[in-house]
């Protein structure tokens, strides 16, 4: 970056946007909200991790995954398994026929801890698994699909099917997974009670901190040549390939990156909400995550945070007062964002608010390269050419 000193960066326009978000999340919301509401905001923020990943994966690189709930859920389940084991001490579970294993296993006549639960006794293993498990799965899916040049709607449908498979599997195998209720009754993290108000407030701040880490990671990627390749790949995949890039490797990378973000978000979700269940994984919640990103502006990582906050706040608001209206609003949001505001809030901000800022601060209205919202969106050229749903994503001549 041209602004090598961090202080200078904070004074740049982009830096100010980050500062504004930090001010909102670190100062304004904690002061304005009671611990219960703040905890809700923390929950919404965990979805922002997924949305940031989707900006990188879908907005920049054009890979729409309808299965991000899978990675969110895997991260969340990894965390929940650790917490559940810690809560299931032999003393606490003395009334079970097999003490020392999680209660739902006992209800399902399991008499020993399944092998894949064993390593989750270790906190460090759990922390690694929260990122590694989603990333490994994303790598396997990405490798299988992208090296065969499956993309576009095919990739979307297959990721959706994977979300469906995982949900059915978790619900069906309740002895191992807690079934439809999920993993509940989580109490302590390494001896620290996560259910108290003070713990919830601390977890909120941990979540905000991690969010900024992920934002900076995403920002780093988008500002390097890698970020330009991702955008270029979306518009002119063929040209990128014939400029000597292994397109599949870049797609796998960004898909894994999005999965890692989602996994971190899921783990924080478990800590903040206190349980994990398959309803956060399935088709419906996975596709909802896409709207967080789309509303915020599919090209803007900061927009993704606001998108996740707004949609979830609206959802809670509606469900408290007019639950039957929410699906209409949500449906309208999907249609409206796609048809009328393909660049979401970030696009609107750029069109209507930034010129005002320019006038207010007497800046020259010049595009600042580093700004996430200043990139040109979205009308994808690759899909503008005679799009063939079957054949354009991979070569048909493969034997």
């Amino acid at each position, binding site marked *: 970056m041209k602004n090598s000193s961090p202080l200078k960066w904070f004074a740049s326009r982009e830096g100010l946007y980050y500062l504004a978000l930090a001010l909102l999340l670190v100062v304004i919301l904690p002061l304005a909200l009671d611990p219960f509401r703040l905890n809700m905001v923390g929950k919404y923020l965990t979805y922002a991790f997924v949305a940031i990943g989707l900006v990188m994966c*879908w907005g920049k690189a*054009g890979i*729409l995954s*309808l299965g991000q709930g899978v990675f969110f859920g895997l991260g969340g389940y990894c965390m929940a398994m650790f917490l559940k084991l810690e809560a299931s001490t032999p003393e606490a579970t003395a009334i079970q026929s097999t003490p020392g294993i999680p209660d739902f296993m006992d209800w399902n006549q399991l008499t020993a801890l399944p092998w894949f639960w064993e390593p989750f006794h270790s906190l460090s293993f759990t922390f690694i698994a929260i990122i590694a498990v989603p990333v490994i799965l994303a790598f396997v*899916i990405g490798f*299988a*699909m992208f090296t*065969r*040049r*499956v993309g*576009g*709607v*095919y990739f*979307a*449908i*297959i990721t*959706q*099917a*994977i979300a*469906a*498979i995982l949900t*059915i*599997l978790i*619900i*069906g195998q309740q002895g191992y997974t807690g079934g439809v209720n999920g993993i509940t009754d989580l109490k302590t993290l390494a001896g620290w009670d996560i259910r108290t108000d003070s713990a919830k407030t601390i977890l909120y701040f941990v979540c905000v901190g991690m969010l900024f880490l992920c934002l900076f990671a995403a920002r780093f990627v988008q500002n390097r040549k890698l970020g330009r390749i991702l955008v270029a790949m979306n518009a002119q995949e063929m040209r990128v390939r014939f400029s000597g890039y292994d397109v599949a490797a870049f797609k796998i990378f960004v898909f894994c990156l999005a999965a890692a973000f989602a996994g971190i978000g899921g783990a924080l979700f478990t800590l903040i909400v206190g349980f994990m269940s398959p309803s956060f994984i399935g*088709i*419906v919640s996975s*596709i909802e995550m*896409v*709207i967080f990103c*789309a509303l915020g502006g599919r090209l803007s990582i900061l927009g993704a945070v606001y998108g996740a906050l707004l949609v979830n706040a609206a959802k809670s608001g509606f469900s408290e007062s007019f639950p*039957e209206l929410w*699906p*209409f609003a*949500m*449906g*309208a*949001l*999907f*249609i*409206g*964002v*796609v*048809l009328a505001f*393909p660049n979401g809030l970030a696009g609107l901000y750029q069109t209507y608010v930034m010129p005002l800022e320019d006038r207010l601060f007497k800046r020259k209205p010049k595009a600042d390269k580093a700004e996430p919202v200043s990139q040109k969106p979205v*009308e*994808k050229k690759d*899909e*503008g050419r*005679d*799009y*063939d*749903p*079957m*054949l354009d994503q*991979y070569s*048909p*001549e493969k034997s």
Partner: protein
Amino acid sequence: MFDGYTTSELMSIFAMQGFAGLSLFSVFVLMALGLAIIFGQMGVINMAHGEFMILGAYTTYLTSGFFQSYMPSLFGGYFFIAMILAFLICAALGALIEWLMIRHLYHRPLDTLLATWGLSLIMQQAYRSIFGAREVGVELPEWMMGAIQVTDLVELPINGLFVMIIALSIALGVYLLMYRSSWGKKVRAVVQNRPMAEAVGINSAGVDRMTFALGCGIAGIAGAAFTMIGSTGPSSGQAYIVDTFLVVVFGGAQSLIGTIVSAFGISQAQSTMEFFLSGSMAKVLTLLVVVGILMLRPEGLMALKVRR
């Protein structure tokens, strides 16, 4: 897993489950046909396809109620009226949606997917508000009840047979329409080369609208047929949408025969496994196999090699 069954029992189990699978097959074929037309010919993913099907089912439900109250003597034939109504209503709504929404998104297939998902949420909630969250069922006409006894152990329900006959007739009809009629030629011409098709005087926008309406109309018929073998709730359509997409993709998007073959394979695999495993594991296993095969062979079962 075959322990404890005699050979003849096993044969009967396979026959019965095979038939149960055939009911599922009929539903898959009916749903997949509409979807395959829209996806295969237009490249549009219609996530609200299941909701169009449910619209057809509710149409049938209302028609049956109407006949029961006002024309009980004609009740035996209501289904055919309902089927035509379901087709017309769904096709009309489909044409409207195409005009309002889809035509603006032809170059953005991923966005179409999201927009039609939004549509499906709205339709579902509308059903919930109008018909209530509970599932509704229709009363079968008398001639559709009962079963044909084949052997001591094997009996085939008439309604299941009837739905299968409808599924196959519609598949045949779609085949004739797409490959033997001049309209079908126009559709395929637009698919293969839009500018050229326009240059020879085909109204490609009109063809798009008709294709989309036809796909939705067939979903309506699927919904009508669906009421003969199951009850209908606001979100019944969503339950099938992933399966149906896999059926279409697995078959090879532009191949009608492929769609039918893959519908048959997936439904048979699922229902046969269901008898030996739990229902959910049968489904997981089926989906996993399909996804696995698609990863190895993304072009589906039947795909052409094309020069481009």
